[in-house]
């Protein structure tokens, strides 16, 4: 796996799978995202890090076409999320913060429903559904009602839904929030597998630092709607500094900057 990673980050640059340029989002008076720009290369696994309320979910919702941006642009696999929305959405697999599940359905029928929505060709649908269920370890509960499943399993169903159409880009919004430590480890292993086996680009948001260290190759840190830091994980933690120290340092510096600005 490490060789693979090196090949990705060190070799000739892959095309950009996610391009965000000058993104702004305003809710009434409050500006949640203020001129954010970044790019993610195909095959990269990027951690989108920031404290609660930093604008992570908003950015992901814009990327997936759920919310329109106030200004700026975002492209997924070369398709603008606004003007070429259908193509962009087809290229995306999205797990929102709360998995969008129908409690009365079974994982099998639910993932099949999503496969239909995402235009998986009829001939390949059954295979795609089975594969998604298998990769997420859901074969044993495929005929149970989703409402009877534990939170960890529901999260897996949410992941299965996101990968069923084999998207180029996977957007995961806090995929391990609210899970117990064992479930967290399982979901992380799953995401790592997905990233390693497919050539999927993954962007996952979190405010849990070890998560980034466990899964990601690169970190994009945002605070109050702006990019604070964008570096490969290896560079960041070089010299034995843990990500937590970097994070705390950056965030407190950011906070004191804000205080100074407010005072001036």
């Amino acid at each position: 796996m490490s060789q693979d990673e090196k090949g990705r980050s060190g070799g000739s640059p892959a095309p950009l799978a996610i391009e965000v340029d000058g993104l702004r989002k305003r809710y009434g008076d409050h500006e949640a995202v203020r001129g954010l720009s970044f790019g993610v290369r195909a095959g990269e696994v990027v951690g989108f890090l920031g404290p609660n309320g930093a604008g992570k979910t908003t950015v992901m919702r814009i990327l997936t076409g759920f919310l329109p941006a106030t200004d700026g642009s975002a492209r997924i696999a070369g398709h603008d999320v606004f003007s070429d929305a259908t193509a962009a959405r087809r290229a995306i697999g999205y797990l929102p913060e709360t998995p969008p599940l129908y409690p009365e359905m079974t994982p099998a029928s639910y993932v099949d429903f999503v496969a239909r929505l995402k235009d998986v060709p009829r001939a390949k649908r059954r295979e795609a559904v089975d594969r998604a269920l298998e990769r997420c370890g859901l074969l044993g509960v495929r005929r149970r009602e989703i409402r009877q499943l534990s939170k960890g399993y529901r999260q897996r169903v949410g992941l299965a839904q996101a990968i069923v159409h084999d998207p180029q880009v996977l957007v995961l919004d806090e995929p391990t929030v609210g899970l117990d430590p064992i479930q967290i480890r399982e979901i992380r292993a799953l995401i790592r597998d997905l990233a390693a086996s497919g050539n999927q680009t993954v962007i996952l948001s979190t405010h849990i630092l070890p998560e980034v260290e466990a899964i990601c190759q690169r970190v994009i840190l945002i605070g109050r709607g702006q990019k604070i830091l964008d570096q490969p994980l290896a560079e960041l933690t070089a010299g034995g500094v843990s990500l937590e120290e970097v994070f705390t340092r950056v965030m407190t510096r950011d906070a004191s900057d804000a205080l100074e600005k407010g005072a001036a």
Partner: protein
Amino acid sequence: MRHVLTIASRELRSLFVSPVAYVVLTLWSVIAGTFFLASLYGFHEQQFRLQQMQMLDRLETLNLNDQLIEPFIGSMWVIVLFLLPAVTMGLVASEKANGTDELLLTSPISIWDIVLGKFLAGVEFVTIMTAIAGFFPALLFFYGDPELGKTLSGMLCLWLVSVTYVAVGVFASSVTRNQLVAFIFTFVLLLILGMMLPFIVDISMSGSGIPSESPVAEVIRWMATGSHVDRMLQGLIDTSDLAYYGVASAIFLLLSKTVIESARWR
């Protein structure tokens, strides 16, 4: 179109997993049966009385269509107004409450796919309701000789009213995430559309001094469902009545689409 069917079939399956669908269909069957029996006894009694009083000319004009089927369907469309909100309240509201709207709105489908899918699921449900109600008049064909055309026209009327009310229900369900609010809103809209418009005209006109034959009053009366039911129940299928159901459904579906679309801009 494919996506419309996908959404409709999922919705219909979910409806039949919940108890609401069965409660509504049971109530509907019981009410239809009761009303039908009542109409049947009424008809029988009328016939008996006319025979006793030797009013043969009146007896001649007595027939199953006008004295039984028509009042039966005429009361059933009012029942639709009370039961349907329970079916349609969750159509869009539950997606928002579940967070599944985020799935639908980030899928490569259009908002029309969502609205029409929900509408189609509701239409399929009221088709089942109409079929159940139709079972009773159909019985009469075994024992009597009602006019087929007139009966079918009445059933078509019941179905069209229900379909129009589904469109209203989709709209009311799309303005909120709370199913109870959606239920009440649908019910109020249907009460106004179905029953209260003529009274509103009468009351407001009598106060304002505008003659009750003024164009405004005519338009408001045209908007009431009641003004498009009677002729059809009597077997007269008028294009203006058909247009009413088409236009009303289209308006409410367009409103639903606008509401769902605008939600992401707020």
